[in-house]
């Protein structure tokens, strides 16, 4: 599988110690950690807002070898509370950007479905602004979109909707996504989950496997989603053989 981005031995101030992260083409990665663990700092490093001697490769090439314009056309970073508008409405913002026609139509369709297309930028809610930024970033970045703190202003249901949309994009254009979060609620929808604690990646891999490590997750200051938490604990008490994500199945397994 082609690697879009790799971060090697990233060490930065007291936040990160020898962090390694590989993002493959067409994958969604969830990067979870407690407050102030450095999630936004990582996003800012990837956005080249924090400068330093980092070993970060984009499509196999040192990222410093890309011009700003080239880099921007490959990677975009979305922040939950930074909205930079040039035009009056999301529709006009889309028209201003250089986006492939087919992709633009697809993104505009989503914006229309969300009823934000012709709304004034100033009147968009946080949730709507975030959607607008995500759609624009998907349009602009050919390879990777980083969404920092996606769940800050979204409910778990709304976050789920974003994940499903990102999945469509990975299928259509093989785009990759890195989502930073403090909530593990929807991370099962990602391809890979990283858990950061005190500057180190303590867990990484398939989300369902990772989410079963409840002790380590709790120590990282995070909460295991209810159904997984319950299943794991029941399994530990020999009341259940397998993890169930659906309550009906879990209840059937327990009482049959």
């Amino acid at each position, binding site marked *: 599988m082609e690697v879009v981005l790799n971060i090697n031995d990233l060490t930065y101030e007291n936040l990160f110690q020898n962090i390694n992260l590989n993002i493959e083409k067409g994958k969604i990665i969830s990067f979870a*950690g*407690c*407050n102030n663990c450095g999630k936004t700092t990582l996003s800012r490093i990837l956005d080249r807002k924090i400068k330093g001697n980092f070993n970060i490769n984009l499509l196999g090439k040192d990222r410093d070898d890309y011009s700003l314009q080239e880099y921007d056309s490959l990677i975009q970073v979305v922040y939950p*509370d930074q909205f930079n508008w040039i035009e009056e409405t999301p529709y006009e913002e889309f028209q201003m950007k250089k986006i492939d026609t087919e992709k633009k139509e697809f993104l505009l369709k989503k914006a229309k479905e969300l009823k934000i297309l012709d709304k004034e930028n100033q009147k968009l809610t946080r949730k709507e602004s975030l959607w607008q930024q995500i759609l624009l970033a998907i349009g602009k970045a050919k390879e990777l979109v980083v969404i920092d703190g996606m769940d800050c*202003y979204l409910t778990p249901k709304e976050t789920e909707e974003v994940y499903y949309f990102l999945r469509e994009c990975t299928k259509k254009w093989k785009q990759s996504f890195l989502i930073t979060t403090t909530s593990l609620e929807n991370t099962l929808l990602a391809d890979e989950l990283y858990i950061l604690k005190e500057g180190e990646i303590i867990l990484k891999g398939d989300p369902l496997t990772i989410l079963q490590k409840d002790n380590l997750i709790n120590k990282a200051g*995070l909460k295991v989603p*209810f159904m997984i938490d319950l299943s794991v604990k029941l399994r530990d*008490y020999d009341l259940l053989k397998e993890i169930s994500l659906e309550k009906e199945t879990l*209840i059937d397994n327990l009482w049959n």
Partner: protein
Amino acid sequence: MELVVKEYKRKEKSLSFTIKEKEINGLTGNHLEEILKIIKLNGEHNNQIEINHEKVNEKNRYEVKKKIIVIEEEWQEKSFGNTLEEIMIDQMKEYEIYPKNLEKKLKDSLKIVGLEPTLLTREFATLSQSEKKKFQISLGLLLNPEMIILIEPFKVLDQKNRKKLMMVMKKIKENFQKTIVIVSNDPNILYEETDHLIIYKNDKILVEGKTKELYQRVEFLKRHKVELPEIIEFIYYARKNKNAKIDYCVDIRDLIKDIYKHV
């Protein structure tokens, strides 16, 4: 502070509800801005609102309003100064609060929410999401309100910080007899953290009462499309479909103990 609303006329409907004194109240539902307007005393108030058994009128309204602080979900940018200290001082001036020992007051307000007093000289823009949220709360506490309304306070906070914040709120409630209102659409948080719950749906109060008892009225809540806490939903299905003899509870460990006994 107890806030009682009696037959408040709104969109041809009449609203009655109580924000209980010295309790952690929960408020959930849709179009909550309507009901929040009433609680914040921003709507009409023709003797339909009572605070501590006293009717709110045009004369006392602004005095009472000063005792109610709303911690909004989003930071409301104003023309404050840049550092936390400057923002705090501006806020106190706005509310005409002049403490004897200003520095101590500012530092204590930060400490109570778990922020380092050294942050006073930091620029607000450099704070992380969670620090901004904690600072927003400390700014509210600085004004020594009688009622604190927190709108979706936990969205940017991790589990550990959520627990810490709730501990602070419980301490404030118990030690200083403050009334807390948590406005949220997360039933899990409301179930775990609140004592009294008001559900506002389609421009009316659907139901209000003790949170733990109220969430056990599953059939009623389902009929009105009210989202349930995950643990309640699980227990409800186990009782309904398997006749499982397990009791409604809040803590997942209690649920496991019950399952262990009855499976």
